[in-house]
């Protein structure tokens, strides 16, 4: 029995009262529980406040009205909920509620007039925001002891959104605690309905103590809107109130709290079974400062055994910047303990290491044939030439080099290294077939494009001989004429038809049995349409990149025919497939559509030979903002985001080693949003993402001009740079 005496008494009293009144009636456990729930809500209700905002973006992000209409992702703007955590006017709530950066925040405490509120600070790892109002003597709820939270116990999610009157009981949704220590040890999980209706409100136990503060959360993404897409989905989260109370004093100082990072990367990709051996140490990171080295095996953190990287993530998950930990490692046959390792924030974000080559794709032979060598790159300095084959690679200090199986293996090997690492590379020369070993010092991936990317880019040997035979014929133009990117008029040609294509194929046995051309598809389950463009010269022996096009609110950009016509040559020559999902609402994209879009994208990924290193989200205006959002929230799929005239809606997330993301950001110098677009670029650069930025002269809200389009193609075709 961990609950306090007083709460036990309260419950007894409630139940006794419930039963005593209609003394003649049979004992009704349902009624008693129902009453206990209402009593628990009533106990916390005085601390549950309503939050309203004014100003800020109607949409998350820019929200400014330009000639192209709304730019940004819509967000609900209704009232939200908060919880008093200090009698002197401190209220904690979910950061989600401020994703649209309101100019004014008002808080209504039950029984009191409205107050003007100020944001004190934000906890960026738990996504909580502390507000201050000018009030004293507020009711503060009791925290349910964190260690005593049992899976299966009742949990009530309270909110202040549904009923405009804050003196009424808060809205209530009933569930149970589904799990504890979720989201890297930071959250309680519940099946009570959690949504923007009660984010920021308390999750309450049956005894009237507060389990936690309700937040949207996801174990796959970070940021204030992560996890909103599964609202009301039976998977809700709350940050334990005990943890919230613990962090309030730090937030009161007005400094945002960031997640604490150690700054290492695993050696292998197996986070579950392999022992946690360090594959890379970020320069100037907590680990580097402490003297932790590549090859060290982590044994314990703060006295807790660390059998694999997954456990390490769980242990470090709840830590903040500035927190100190103790790490025990094994180096060779010696054990060593580092005490007081001070975790750092995001300043040492992951930076990709770069050798300076483009690989030949879809190559069946072992090793990697060099398709292009970047000027002034480490590869050029080492004397690597186009046509050479990289066969082995390893750190210069290593006793032996490891064989390089293929392109993906080489990419993975470099992802585990940091800039500054000296590597030895064994190359088989194109001329003469001689084998040389060269040395190169890796550098950070530059924000530069290859000058001219040579073709072909593929050996056409993906998947081996079982694949359908490639065609010899020249692809025919599915659109009648090919146009440049700035072409604006959409001629009224026939709608693409699936059936015609199929019939056509019956007569042509040489053609692979896959659908090509501009295809109209319907997501059966949801009844939503999207289009796919597969170049007519599609060859299953080659792997294709995918460009997912997010249209703007502007009608013209929704036309699959026009968009794929623009990209026809790119798709045919450089092996890309395009996918064009459509937004559900007239006013543009909403973040919750990510899931639907990903269903469409994943369907396409499953149907064709896909090069996972070249899957990009591309969009203009509101669609560009959606591209940013989807890129960050479907990190497992996207490797690049290319935007025109779009602003980053939320703060960018950190770069991670095995899910790299590159950006191509552009805007017209006459676009009223250009300042915000520049700012978006700066934010990405700050997080050390590779960013190509192009500002188009004499351009407002138009699509790419020809030189920028050429650069965009070079960017698309160099996403698998090594």
């Amino acid at each position, binding site marked *: 029995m961990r609950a306090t005496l007083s709460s036990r008494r309260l419950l007894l009293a409630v139940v006794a009262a419930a039963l005593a009144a209609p003394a003649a009636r049979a004992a009704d456990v349902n009624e008693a529980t129902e009453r206990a729930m209402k009593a628990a809500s009533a106990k916390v209700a005085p601390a549950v406040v309503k939050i309203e905002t004014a100003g800020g973006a109607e949409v998350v992000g820019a929200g400014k009205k330009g000639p192209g209409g709304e730019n940004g992702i819509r967000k609900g703007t209704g009232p939200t909920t908060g919880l008093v955590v200090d009698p002197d006017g401190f209220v904690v709530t979910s950061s989600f509620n401020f994703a649209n950066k309101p100019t004014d925040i008002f808080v209504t405490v039950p029984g009191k007039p409205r107050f003007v509120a100020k944001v004190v600070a934000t906890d960026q790892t738990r996504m909580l925001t502390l507000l201050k109002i000018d009030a004293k003597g507020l009711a503060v709820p009791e925290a349910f002891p964190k260690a005593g939270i049992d899976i299966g116990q009742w949990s009530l999610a309270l909110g202040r959104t549904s009923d405009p009157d804050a003196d009424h009981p808060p809205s*209530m949704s009933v569930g149970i605690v589904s799990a504890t220590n979720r989201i890297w040890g930071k959250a309680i999980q519940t099946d009570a309905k959690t949504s923007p209706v009660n984010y920021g409100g308390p999750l309450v136990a049956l005894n009237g103590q507060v389990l936690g503060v309700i937040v949207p959360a996801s174990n796959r993404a970070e940021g204030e809107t992560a996890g909103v897409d*599964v609202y009301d989905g039976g998977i809700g989260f709350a940050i334990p109130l005990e943890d919230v109370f613990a962090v309030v004093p730090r937030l009161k100082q007005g400094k945002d709290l960031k997640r604490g990072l150690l700054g290492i990367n695993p050696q292998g990709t197996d986070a579950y079974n392999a022992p946690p051996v360090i594959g890379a140490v970020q320069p100037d990171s907590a680990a580097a400062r402490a003297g932790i080295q590549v090859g060290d095996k982590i044994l314990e953190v703060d006295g807790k055994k660390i059998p694999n990287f997954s456990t390490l993530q769980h242990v470090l998950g709840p830590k903040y910047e500035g927190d100190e930990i103790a790490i025990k490692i094994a180096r060779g046959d010696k054990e060593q303990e580092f005490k007081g390792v001070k975790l750092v924030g995001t300043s040492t974000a992951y930076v990709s290491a770069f050798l300076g080559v483009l690989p030949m794709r879809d190559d069946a032979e072992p090793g990697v044939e060099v398709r292009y060598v970047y000027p002034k790159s480490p590869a050029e300095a080492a004397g690597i030439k186009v046509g050479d084959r990289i066969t082995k690679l390893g750190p210069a200090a290593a006793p032996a080099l490891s064989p390089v199986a293929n392109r993906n293996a080489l990419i993975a090997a470099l992802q585990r290294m940091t800039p500054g690492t000296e590597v030895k590379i064994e190359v088989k020369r194109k001329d003469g077939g001689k084998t040389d070993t060269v040395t190169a010092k890796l550098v950070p991936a530059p924000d530069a494009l290859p000058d001219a990317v040579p073709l072909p880019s593929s050996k056409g040997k993906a998947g081996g001989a079982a694949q359908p035979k490639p065609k010899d014929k020249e692809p025919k133009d599915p659109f009648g004429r090919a146009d440049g990117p700035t072409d604006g008029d959409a001629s009224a040609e026939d709608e693409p038809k699936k059936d015609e294509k199929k019939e056509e194929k019956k007569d042509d046995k040489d053609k692979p049995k896959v659908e090509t051309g501009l295809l109209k598809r319907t997501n059966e389950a949801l009844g939503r349409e999207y289009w796919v463009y597969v170049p007519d010269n599609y060859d299953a022996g080659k792997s294709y990149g995918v460009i997912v096009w997010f249209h703007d609110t502007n009608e013209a950009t929704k036309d699959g025919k026009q968009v794929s016509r623009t990209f026809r040559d790119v798709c045919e020559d450089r092996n890309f497939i395009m996918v064009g999902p459509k937004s559900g609402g007239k006013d543009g994209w909403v973040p919750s559509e990510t899931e639907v879009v990903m269903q469409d994208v994943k369907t396409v990924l499953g149907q064709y030979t896909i090069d996972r290193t070249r899957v990009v989200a591309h969009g203009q205006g509101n669609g560009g903002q959606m591209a940013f959002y989807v890129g960050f929230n479907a990190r497992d799929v996207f490797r690049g985001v290319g935007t025109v005239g779009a602003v980053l809606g939320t703060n960018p997330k950190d770069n991670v080693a095995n899910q790299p993301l590159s950006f191509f950001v552009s805007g017209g110098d006459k676009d009223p949003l250009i300042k915000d677009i520049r700012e978006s670029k700066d934010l990405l650069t700050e997080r050390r993402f590779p960013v190509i930025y192009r500002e188009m002269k004499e351009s407002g809200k138009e699509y790419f001009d020809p030189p920028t389009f050429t650069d965009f193609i070079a960017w698309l075709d160099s996403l698998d740079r090594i």
Partner: protein
Amino acid sequence: MTLLRPPVEAGGVTAHDPNAPMTRHSTWFLAAALAAPFAAAPARAADPFNEVAEKANQKMVKVFGAGGFSRLNSYGTGIIISPDGHVLTAASQLLDTSELVVHLYDGQRLKAQVLAVEPELDVAIIKIRVEGKKIEEPTGLNLDYFDFAAAAKRPPAETGDWVLALTNTFEIALRDEPLSLQRGVVMARTKLAGRRGVFEFPYTGDVYVVDAITNNPGAAGGALLTRKGELIGVVGREIKNSLSDTWMNYAIPVNAKVDIKEVVKTKDKDGKEKDEEKVTTVTMPDFVALGMQGKYKNVTRPKTVLGEGGYHGIVFVPNILDRTPAYVEDVVPGSPAAKAGLRPDDLVSFIDGEPVASINVFQTWLKKNTRPGQVVRIEVRRGEALQTIEMTLGVPPKAATPTPAPMPK
């Protein structure tokens, strides 16, 4: 979008095992508590969900009608409200057919016909037809039914009340299969959130918001019951809350009431024409009582024409963004705003309790809801505090003299 939500929440918990949904210690508390006054009486529900559901299921029908294309489903749910076969259901596109069919609890398949529809309440009454009998004639069915008049007289449910929903969600129940039972609580009794008219939804009265995912395809017209099986509401359709951009799960209460306001021209005793507000009230009990007799007459809702609204004399900062906050740039001397003491740099934050997110919201609200002479309560942010100001709206200045721009000082 429906797939983003779980298709159906697991059915209700049977109360035969009272320990099932509880934690160890809460069970212990309850057991201890119960043991005290009732010496060793086992804790069990007086009204187990399964018994309640069994009885209620016999008073429900599955409705089949128009639809089946796009995202409009051709199936729904209905509540039997007379032994003769009157059925209360949602006023959906389903009813736009001459081939309306219902399935009774026992699997009987019968034709039905629409008797009355009230879009203001978003409900309709249909009557089951028996072969060879006219619609006005008694069917002789003698069905189990919910006594609607009695249900409407009970006090409304409160936040936190346990409720059960019976619906043919996703058309899972076929022929004689019982409907799907869901358990939840009343989250709140409140207005649908489309308070600023973003919703294109006819019903504007109170709803029960429930915390079970009740509003799925086919569920509209289902029954919301107390845990004792008393009818408290009609499950609504699938709609999205425009304020929080989330799907709503709601039911229209059995005692729903909607006031329809209309401005009519009347003449005062001096024969001068004046505007008067006329309020017509539409209630669910009236609709059901008259609708069953075929005597219900629809109230036609007047087209909402935005009037001028009352005049205030506030000059706002330039309204360049959709969400430009309602900052006061200046007030017209001698105007209602000046008299009320509004000042430059005040931020108009609430009007009659409604949040003013932007200048646009303020202007629209004023046009929709006010007339000259009306007193409005404005809360302005002045510095770091909110001040409440009462302002008596005036008559808009004549068109010839538009709101004068403030003179440069």
